[in-house]
């Protein structure tokens, strides 16, 4: 019988340890497929953050470095500057990249560092048990916003890819979702482009992926997908936010 779907070579055979319905696994699978399709598994060094996202170091079949919380891009830049012909990507939660690690994200983009960053936005701090993130949406209850996020006190949720898109050295910025087969396909295309940008040495590329956290949202996997669609997709600008001419020409 012809095999029409197989585990990507970009993944090890270690089983995902995420909660049921968590889309971290979907996003990792997409990245793994891209690494395989671009034939760069053996040339790639991934940088894992701290957070649920950090478990990715066990799942990808490429080399990996575990960074301190928020520092994945700085670590990745160190690798890329040492080995410019390798592919370097970071896989970071929204808390990691858009709170504690903001300065590295901004300056990686400003300098046009030739690395690829994948931001996983689940509107919450997953690993530490569901605290408010810069991406938590208005009214959303978390353990540190038990009465719901108050935009007056806590500020409005941060649309981080838009911040990055403003910077010259960021040549490709996209915001995607993995809530439906159609969107999963789009997400994979964006991720692939973000790696091709690096291969072509054009500059910094960021793909933000909206993701679920059924455990800390206190929802079933299906309800989580609906909640993401109804509450997150309308407030975060979706699609390709920045594509320079050179990237267009790829």
């Amino acid at each position, binding site marked *: 019988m012809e095999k029409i779907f197989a585990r990507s070579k970009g993944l*090890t055979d270690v089983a995902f340890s995420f909660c049921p319905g968590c889309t971290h696994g979907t996003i990792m699978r997409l990245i793994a497929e891209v690494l395989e399709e671009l034939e760069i*598994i*053996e*040339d*790639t*060094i991934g*940088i*894992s953050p*701290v957070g649920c996202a*950090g478990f990715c*170091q*066990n799942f*990808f*079949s*490429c*080399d*990996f*470095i*575990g*960074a*301190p919380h928020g*520092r994945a891009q*700085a*670590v*990745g*830049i*160190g*690798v*890329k*500057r*040492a*080995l410019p012909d*390798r592919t370097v990507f970071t896989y970071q939660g929204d808390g990691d990249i858009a709170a504690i690690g903001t*300065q*590295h994200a*901004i*300056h990686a983009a400003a300098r046009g560092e030739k690395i690829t960053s994948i931001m996983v936005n689940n509107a919450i701090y997953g690993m530490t048990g569901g605290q408010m993130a810069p991406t938590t949406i208005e009214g959303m209850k978390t353990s540190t916003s038990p009465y719901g996020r108050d935009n007056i006190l806590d500020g409005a949720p941060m649309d981080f890819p838009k911040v990055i898109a403003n910077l010259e050295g960021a040549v490709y910025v996209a915001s995607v979702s993995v809530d439906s087969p159609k969107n999963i396909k789009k997400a994979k295309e964006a991720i692939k482009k973000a790696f091709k940008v690096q291969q072509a040495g054009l500059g910094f590329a960021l793909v933000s992926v909206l993701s679920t956290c059924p455990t800390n949202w206190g929802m079933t996997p299906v309800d989580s997908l609906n909640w993401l669609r109804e509450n997150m997709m309308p407030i975060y600008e979706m699609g390709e936010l920045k594509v320079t001419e050179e990237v267009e020409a790829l």
Partner: protein
Amino acid sequence: MEKVLMKGNEIIGEAAIRSGCKLFFGYPITPSTEVVEYLSKHLPPKGGTVLQAEDEIGAINMCYGAACTGSRVLTASSSPGVSLKQEGISYSAAVELPMVIVNVNRCGPGLGGLGPAQSDYFQSVKGGGHGDYRLIVLAPSTAQELYDFTMQGFDLADQYRNPVLILTDGFLGQTMEPVVLKERPEPPKVDRSWVVDGAKGREKRILASYSLTNEIGEDNNLRWEKKYKNIQEKEQQWEEFHTEDAEYLLVSYGTTGRICKSTVLNARKKGIKLGLIRPITLWPYPEKAFIPYKDKVKGIVTVELNTGQMIEDVKLAVECKMPVHLYRRQGGMLPNEHEILDYVEDIFSLTAVEEV
């Protein structure tokens, strides 16, 4: 061999280049800035990379990434900047990464001042960041030692797979002195089977320090402890000056170690049998230096630029078998050789000794 007149901080840069260091990540801060400035000018033409990071946190984490690839990498900063680096240094120690970190110590706490100080001794030798780790810490006291120890630092870092800290100060960093640009010593043969550079034709590798299993955590700590013990056994370095017949000892490192030599010579002219132990490795602390003098010497004065930090290690090294006193200046002030001698005479009631 080429002899040149250079500023202390520039010498560190030149030594790094000649040690085969290809990458520097840093952020400017007085009195260490000449290191990044010198390398910005001289490293790129030799095929290396210098990156002025967004801050010291970025810089140390870039070093962490570069070191994971097995490349020789350097960062330099001064006290407040080194404080910012501590988390990254702890991670680097945990992943066992060779790298050289320079701290041109300025006085503090807080923003403090630019004058020479030894106020970061505890931070340097007791593990300034979280967790239980050690850095190999070298304390130069002359321009030549800035050069030699930077070179040695890269080799020690490679040999033990451990970060090395060069602890110097603004006085050494800013002073112009002649230095012989010695050839790089034969680099140690080191195992590279841990390096992360792309899993081509081999199993994937992970360099990380996360472990949620306490048993694995303890195994890791035991492994590091074993390495640290081995370093303590093999790498203690110090200089002795007029110690053979000494009745009293000064103990001092770096800039003050150098000043203390004049104090010893002046004391000897007065007939006071004073000697000096100048620690070169601050970690591992040169405990072995004290063994011959433990039961012989009548008293010790440590001379420091802080409220008395190294004195604790001296007391441990001599097992409190004799009085150990402290003479210190702070806030960027340096003692001169006379005030140190006055203190020695005073504290040990030596003023009656006749001039010879």
